[in-house]
């Protein structure tokens, strides 16, 4: 099998004034992912190369990089799929570079936190004091399940044209998570999230370029979530939004006789 050329972005703060590209030759083997290639470089060619990864199976969202000009998870990208022998790997754009391929995802996490990404329960009371689970239909589950698959990798933020200039724009991931909780029937915090998404740098700076959904490695479709959030906000501000009934907790299971008679000796003794 042919050798591959990895063009990797290098940047060491304090030493380099700006990032530069360095080339490595990596032997191809079947099933090699871009992350495998980087690990090969680190183990055999240059142990100063820095990148971040953990699960190596597209679960943790650590290894987001710009691979051949498209944001992708390095562990999730087999080299064969790229259809080329030259692989350009850069740090995720729109995020500050800590070193080499390691992007600082703090801005993402801060914004994610700022949109209240948890179930807010004003009417139904404290989540910790509940005595039974909530009832939820399959349809209600479907309304947010897709958005709940987000692994916070930040690829969508790297793809979004608005994030590329506006550091305050909330961005696809946080807005998508905002909607994910607004549409959950257990939640009563939609209003407070609407207020946050309504800022000058909120949901209305999304122009449906759809790049976020295209880049998302988990099929989350943040662009869809954001449009549904806009719809909910428009309907809400026109007072047309139907207030969803808060979810009802299941009744505690009544004391009842066991269905199958239990032989005496297994209970006594």
């Amino acid at each position, binding site marked *: 099998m042919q050798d591959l050329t990895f063009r990797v972005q290098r940047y060491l703060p304090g030493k380099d004034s700006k990032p530069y590209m360095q080339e490595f030759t990596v032997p191809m083997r079947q099933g090699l992912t871009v992350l495998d290639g980087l690990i090969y470089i680190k183990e055999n060619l240059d142990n100063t190369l820095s990148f971040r990864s953990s699960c190596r199976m597209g679960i943790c969202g650590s290894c987001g990089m710009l691979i051949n000009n498209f944001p992708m998870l390095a562990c999730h990208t087999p080299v064969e799929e790229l259809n080329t022998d030259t692989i350009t790997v850069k740090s995720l*754009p729109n*995020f500050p570079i800590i070193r080499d391929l390691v992007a600082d995802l703090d801005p993402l996490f801060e914004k994610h936190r*700022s949109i209240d990404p948890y179930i807010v329960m004003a009417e139904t009371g404290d989540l910790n004091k509940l005595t039974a689970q909530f009832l939820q239909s399959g349809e209600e589950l479907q309304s947010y399940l897709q958005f709940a698959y987000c692994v916070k990798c930040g690829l969508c933020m790297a793809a979004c044209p608005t994030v590329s200039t506006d550091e305050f724009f909330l961005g696809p991931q946080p807005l998508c998570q905002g909607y994910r909780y607004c549409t959950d029937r257990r939640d009563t915090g939609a209003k407070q999230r609407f207020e946050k998404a309504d800022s000058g740098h909120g949901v209305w700076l999304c122009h449906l370029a759809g790049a976020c959904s295209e880049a998302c490695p988990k099929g989350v479709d943040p662009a869809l979530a954001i449009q549904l959030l806009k719809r909910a906000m428009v309907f809400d501000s026109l007072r047309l939004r139907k207030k969803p009934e808060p979810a009802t907790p299941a009744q505690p299971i009544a004391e009842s006789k066991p269905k199958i008679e239990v032989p005496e000796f297994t209970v006594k003794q």
Partner: protein
Amino acid sequence: MTTNATSGENRHLPNRLGIKGWIWGGNYTIERYLYTLHRITGLGLLLYITLHLVMNGFRLGGAESWTDLMSFFSGPGFKFGEYLVMAAFIIHALNGGRLILQHLGYTLGKPKPPVYPYVDSLRRRRPILWIMLFIIAALAIYVLVEFVT
């Protein structure tokens, strides 16, 4: 916003694409570039309207100054400019119509559990886009023919 969400940029090398990222951000498909086109046509129309309003001022000068102005603007270069304005309007209006519909969640469908290979809702509804582009092209050609004849 009160978060220090940009704090990283003070500590590390900012790596924002900047305005360049509006025009070309990577290997994306069509909506990403329609977004750029919408922005360019919008700015173009705004510029034209400003010029148009200034031109209107010549009406205050009476029949003579108006006729002078109109004959000044009758050259082929200006004719072409006029056509570009029409084309920009057609693009901006139709794409804008699609954007309003889709911003309000219409024609996008419902959330679906992601099953590999993932297809997002915009791509699932691509035919809508093709129809829109077809109408834009048809109208632009029609107007061109009208202009030439």
